[in-house]
Every structure is written in C-alpha cells, then in structure tokens.
C-alpha cells in the first residue's frame, strides 16, 4: 500500500529514502515505473535516467501514523486488525465475511473503500496470514478456498517468500524460481541449506501451519454494533442507537449472568475517523439505562465534543471486560440498594471527572506521615480496611489529635527560632507571616526508612500559636548530626 501523492504534475514523482549513507528510491509513481525506474534503485541513477524528476523525502513516521489510522478505520470490518508494517494490514475476517455478503464481496468492498480515500491498495484472502501477505503483493484479488493456499501460491516467484537476499540468491543459484518448485523439495534439504526459520515460514505460507496474529486492540468480551446505510448525524439518533446497543448488550450479559466493568463506545465516522470513549464501572453492570447514562456523562465531559462530521456509519459498543455478577443474598432491607446507589454515584462522578479524581484512602504500612495513607480511585475499592483501633499512645488523655487533619502537599520550610537547640521553636515565619508559639508538645521522633537511605531523622512538634492555631512542625535532622537543621511545617491541626 503506497501513499498516493496529490494531483499529477508534469514531472514523475519518486519518494527518496535513506539506507546507510546513500539515497535510494523508496517509493514511486506508476508513471515513473513506466519510465524504467524501480524501487530500491540508487536515487542518482534514477535522476540520470529521468529528467526532470520530482523527489520528496520519505516520512516514515507519517506513513506509520497513516497505517494506524487505516487500521482504526478497518475496525469496522472486524475487531481483529493487526499491523503488518510498513505497508500492510491483516484483517482476521473469520466469521465476519458473511456480514458483508461473502468473501469476494467483502474483499472488493474493503479495497474499494480504501481506494476511495486516495490510497493504492491490493488485497487477497487466504487461510494463513503469510499466504495472504504474499498473494496480496504478487497476485492481488486472489481468494483461496480452504486448504488451497499451497496451490494458490505455487506459481508465485520466490521473491514472494521475503526471506532475505542471501536465501534468495541461494535459491536462484539452485535454479528454483517459483514457490511451488521450492515447496516440492524435501524440507530436510531446505532446512540444512537455509535454516529452520525458512522452512517454518514456508509451512505457514503453504497453509500447513498457522502463525497467530496479535490484534492491535484487546478483543472485547462482548460487543454489539449497528451499521447505518445512511450515516447518522443528529444527537437523538446517536442516543437512540446507543440505547438499543446497550439493550442488546445488556440482554446478552443477562443471559450469561455477567456484567460489564469496562465499556467502550466506538463511533466510526463516514470519512474514516474513529472516536472511542471508555467508561469504567466500580461493579459489574448490565442495566442498559445506567450504561447509557454513564456514556452520556462521559460524552458531556469531553474536552472536544463528539463531532459527527458527515455522520457515523457504524456505532459499536464493546464490553472490554465482563465479569460474573455475584448474585447477592437478597435481604429485605435497604442495605443493598443504598450500597448500589453509592456505587452508581461514584461511577457517575468518575465518568465525568475522571476516575483518579474520586478517591478513597487506603492505609499503608509506613510510619512516615506523608506515606501512611494513599488515595486510590474509589471505583477500585469498595470499602477501606482502616482499623479504627487507635495505636497505644496515639491519643493522650486529653483527646488532642496527634496527627493534623491537613497535610501540606510538600512540607514547607519555615524560619524558626528555638530557645534551646533540641527544643521546640519559639517563633517561626511561614508564608510571610510571623507566628509566636504559646506552647509546644514534643518531640515525636520519626526516623526515615534507613534501608531506603531516605533522609534525615525528624523531630516533630505540635505547636500552638498565641491565637490558638495549631501546626505540626519538624526539625529535619538532629543537632549532633548536622550543624544547623532546617525547620519544616508539614500540617495544620483542626
């Protein structure tokens, strides 16, 4: 597949590529080919043969991006699309061809649609990926019947094996010109001469073995899609289509006793652009109206709204992750209902603002104040496991908190004056304000994790200012360890 470049101009066009330090012809127009140029030729030779010649440098990144876009577009035919760089795509159409009127009709539909977008395209259908690869290049529009790969590729030249220059030379030297002749030789001979890889590839090509393809995107557990003869544009129609898809997906989930945890809606625009929107749920879900509502929330929160352009011709709903719904022991009280309502609220908020913005706290096994609790997405954890038992000595008799309600994101350095070197501060300046300490509590000595070599030992003080505000300060390091330890303010008490 080559990029068709713009409108024809007077001079034939070639794309130059660099290999080693020399420029060569990377790709060329049909007209240039008729003038005797060929791919891989040194650029200087090409310039000498044809004059004038238009040369543009190859942009491999753009080519790769284009291939990705085409692959996205091809998702409408089958969810199993694999890249075959630099110019190829594999579409696994097992079980999909009948949706498009059979293999022949599907092949011509795919090639025609891609051709309409201004691309030169060749395609073939075969039972194995390598056979299809060879046929698409050397005998396009071939459709092999099941088991007919060996016969179909037998007449192809040995170049179709794509086995590297060295092996090709060896084969030519032996007088083997087509794949059929090569395949007729004993495999043990070929292995000895050309290695096991060559024979393995040959077997795949002949349809005797299959090499698994890795699809670009994970295969959804379930999906439902709707195709439109006429692309749809209006929001009402899109919503109606999403609802009917959610209903059919919900029906399947119901029969299987499963629910969706990760839902993705894919909108295929008629001009090839594909927009995907994923929604994550805290608990498996199968109610279509709830699915629709979460999708809508997500759509409304998009930075650049869903642009139908000339309309969507395919809308697909995929359950990327489906899980069994544990049938809850149904009780007659409202517990279950309340829990479900809160879970749904969390899902809705997560769909709107992003899952990392709705958080629960999980305790960590660390004595370092800032590491003792981490916030994780609330969807991931139904309920924390915070033990409410206070640690001995955590509270003193007066009921004063030992830990501040607010921890600053990062401890802030303050200028503090202490009356005695190891004692609490008497005065400190923080955020350009002066605070006089009326009383202080401490120190509470917290050593860093020495096995991580993580810093100095901290002496924490709770201090109360003249007007009653309470702060949590620490001295970073001990006097006998470093000369002049700095003071930091880490938190504010209630």
């Amino acid at each position, binding site marked *: 597949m080559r990029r068709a470049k713009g409108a024809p101009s007077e001079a034939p066009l070639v794309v130059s590529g660099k290999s080693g330090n020399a420029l060569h012809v990377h790709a060329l127009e049909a007209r240039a080919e008729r003038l005797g140029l060929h791919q891989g030729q040194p650029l200087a030779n090409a310039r000498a043969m044809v004059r004038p010649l238009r040369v543009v440098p190859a942009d491999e990144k753009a080519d790769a991006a284009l291939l990705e876009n085409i692959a996205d577009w091809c998702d409408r035919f089958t969810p199993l699309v694999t890249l075959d760089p630099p110019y190829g795509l594999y579409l696994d159409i097992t079980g999909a061809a009948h949706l498009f009127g059979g293999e022949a009709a599907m092949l011509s539909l795919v090639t025609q649609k891609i051709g309409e977008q201004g691309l030169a395209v060749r395609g073939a259908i075969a039972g194995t990926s390598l056979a299809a690869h060879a046929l698409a290049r050397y005998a396009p529009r071939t459709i092999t019947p099941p088991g007919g790969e060996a016969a179909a590729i037998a007449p192809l030249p040995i170049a179709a094996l794509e086995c590297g220059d060295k092996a090709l030379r060896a084969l030519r030297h032996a007088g083997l010109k087509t794949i059929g002749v090569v395949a007729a030789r004993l495999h043990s001979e070929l292995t000895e001469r050309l290695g096991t890889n060559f024979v393995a590839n040959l077997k795949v090509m002949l349809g005797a073995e299959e090499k698994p393809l890795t699809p670009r995107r994970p295969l959804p557990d379930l999906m439902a899609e709707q195709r439109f003869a006429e692309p749809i544009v209006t929001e009402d129609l899109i919503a109606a289509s999403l609802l009917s898809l959610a209903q059919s997906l919900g029906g399947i989930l119901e029969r299987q006793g499963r629910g969706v945890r990760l839902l993705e809606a894919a909108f295929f625009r008629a001009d090839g652009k594909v927009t995907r929107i994923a929604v994550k749920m805290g608990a498996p879900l199968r109610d279509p109206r709830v699915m629709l509502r979460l999708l809508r929330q997500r759509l409304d929160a998009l930075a650049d709204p869903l642009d139908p352009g000339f309309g969507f011709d395919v809308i697909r709903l995929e359950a990327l992750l489906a899980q069994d719904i544990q049938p809850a022991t149904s009780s007659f009280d*409202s517990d279950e209902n309340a829990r479900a309502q809160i879970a749904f609220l969390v899902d809705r*908020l997560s769909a709107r603002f992003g899952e990392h913005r709705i*958080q629960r706290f999980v305790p960590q096994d660390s004595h370092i104040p800032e590491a003792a*609790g981490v916030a994780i997405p609330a969807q991931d954890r139904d309920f924390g496991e915070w033990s409410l038992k206070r640690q001995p000595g955590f509270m003193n008799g007066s*009921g*004063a908190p030992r830990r501040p309600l607010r*921890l600053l994101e990062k401890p802030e350095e303050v200028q503090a004056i202490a009356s005695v070197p190891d004692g609490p501060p008497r005065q400190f300046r923080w955020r350009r304000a002066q605070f006089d300490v*009326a009383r202080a509590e401490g120190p509470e000595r917290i050593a860093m994790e020495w096995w991580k070599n993580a810093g100095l030992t901290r002496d924490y003080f709770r201090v109360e200012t003249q007007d009653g505000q309470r702060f949590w300060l620490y001295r970073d390091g001990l006097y006998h360890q470093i000369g002049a330890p700095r003071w930091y303010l880490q938190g504010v008490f209630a």
Partner: protein
Amino acid sequence: MAELRHALAQYGLPPDRPSVMLGEPRLDAVLGGGLRPGALHEVFAGDWSASGFAALLALLAAQSSTAQSSTDRIRKSLFWVRPDYEAMEYGAVSPHGLAELGGDPNRLILVRTRNAADALSAANDILGCEHVGALLLEVEGAPKCLDLVASRRLAFAAGESGVTVVMLRGGADIEPSAALTRWQVSSARIENDDWGAPVFEAEIVRHRLGGLGRFLLQWDSEHGCFNTPDHGAVAAAPADRPAYAPCQRRAI
C-alpha cells in the same frame, strides 16, 4: 393572616428531620435542637482551624444520618469535595488526622475537581443521592459560579434528599446566600497547662430559623460532641439576643 405569615416563614426551609445534636446544650438550644439536616450550612474561615470545625460538623451530620437510617449496618459515607487549588494551598486531607478527630477514613470519599464550577456540579450530583451521609464542600474565595442561584440550588437539593451540606469558605467575605446557618469560625486558646483537645470560637452570624450567638467549643473526640472548655477565656455572648447588630445580616 397568621397562617400566611407562618407559611411564608417556612417557605424554602428544609423539611423537618431530626436535628443533629452538637453536644453543647446552649448551642443546641440556639439552633433549635441541633444542626438541621438536609440544609446548607456555611462556615467562613477566620483562620486555619475552621476547616477542622467544618469537617467535624459534616462528620456529626454523617453519623447522625447513619444512626437514623433504617438499618444501622450500612455506614454512610462522608463526601469531601474540593478543587485542586485547595489541596495545593491548604494541604491534602489526612486520613490519620480524620481518624484522630473521631472520623472513619473508610467512610471518606474524596472528590477532587479541577475548579469551583466542577465542585459545585459534583456537589449537586452527590446531594441527589439520599444514601450519602453528608457533604463537605470547600470553596476558596468568591468564584463567579457561586452566586445566589447556585447556593439556592444546593440548599434545595439538600432539602430534597435530606443530605446535610457544609460549605467551607476560605478567604471570602460574607455575602448573601441561601444557607440556613452561617458560621464564622476561628481558633481559640484556653489557658491551662496541658495540651488539650482543639478549641474553636464559633459564631453563628446568620440563622434563618432564629438565634445567633458566639460560642467557645471544645471538641470531645471520645464522645463525639462539642463541649464548653473548662476555663473559658472568652466571654460567651448571650444566646437569646444577637451579639452584634443584626441589621446587615438580614440581607436576604
């Protein structure tokens, strides 16, 4: 005529629900039995300690709504909504600190939003769910989106679902809003030797249902209520009449 007057006085007020007892008897009396659930309460920060006071009000409201739910096995969550800016400026919520005050970090769900407008819309969503324990909403300054309409909407949503919302306002001037009560809170210091529980000086500066007053409150995390501290350094204002001229607070 008297009926009409009564109906007008009740207009826009949240439906009657059992009040949230705050503990200090005089304060509860002024509030008419305690903090009214399913209503909007504004806490204006005089200094750093106000956030603790607001958190305690929300905790009490969440606990009380749990106690009143039909089954007490499900513990209701406290939602804490705050724009990212708040966390940068005023520090993140510390689960340990909350536990120290008597709250349950398991029941805390933190919603961090990009800005105040998002925070308000998240708050409206949360108030729509009656199984939420309470909501604490932090808003810094006076953002444009927080106008009278927005606060009316919050108050209405709270009244519909019965979820109490405490709005913590830092660095803001008092302005008209639909809040049922409005508090001005700063820290206080009492002169005694030991390092005791936190003390707040809380003043009710607006109350749509009656009394105002200034109170010195000490948090008792053991019993989960407010008390009068042993040695009051600040003279408490009379409970039966406003401590200040009320005219400017009758803005609405």
